[in-house]
């Protein structure tokens, strides 16, 4: 039994679902961020697997870009989470609810 591309797809979907689950349940901003990273990496798995499957490199290159962008996103995100802590004394994303409706 060889490892076909469909296995990678299932793996990435599982990873994606785990990330999504984390987003829906975790209230800690950092956990939220990490869940997003999981989802991005799920996409990366897909990209590299498909690049291998289709025999072209564009998927792999795109995965590199995704990684770089994910890092940049984390940087900005951490900055915002720091501000969150400063202003609300907590990193719970459900705390700031001054604006609603």
């Amino acid at each position: 039994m060889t490892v076909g591309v469909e296995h990678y797809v299932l793996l990435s979907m599982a990873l994606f679902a785990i990330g999504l689950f984390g987003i829906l349940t975790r209230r800690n901003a950092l956990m939220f961020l990490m869940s997003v990273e999981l989802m991005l990496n799920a996409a990366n798995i897909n990209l590299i697997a498909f690049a291998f499957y289709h025999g072209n490199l564009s998927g792999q290159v795109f995965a590199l870009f995704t990684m770089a962008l994910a890092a940049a996103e984390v940087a900005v995100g951490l900055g915002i989470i720091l501000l969150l802590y400063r202003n609300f004394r907590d990193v719970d994303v459900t705390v700031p609810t001054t604006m609603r409706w």
Partner: protein
Amino acid sequence: MCMRFKLPNVTEMNDWIAIGALALVGVLIPLGMMAVSYLLRPSVPETSKRATYESGEIPTGDTRVRFNIQYYMVALLFLIFDIETVLLFPWAVVYLDAVESDAVSLLEILGPMVLFVTILLVGLAWAWRKGAVQWAQTPRQVETEHNRP
């Protein structure tokens, strides 16, 4: 999700059933054990049980240790500049081949990366001037910090 995934090897689905069953069993056994122990164990709540395990030592202070903000700044900078090397890597792989081939001039292979690094350098210079890599605060920075509203 049972969408129209046309998996190439339909006959291998039998193996999948086996794997699925294994996974199910693998999940059910620990869950069952936890459930049994939950039902059987005696419940004696005590504060020391909830304390952080420090190999017998009594823990002191808060769990969360506060770091200096400078650690954070440097970590962020490291994160950004570190990840950019990922983008340098494929370029480095093809660099020699490109230099040797006649189809691509040296400017075409070198130019974009020089530009990329230049932009990074501008960013680094800016961060430097803003004091992001300053390990200790200079008197001047302390002063301006005070003057801020």
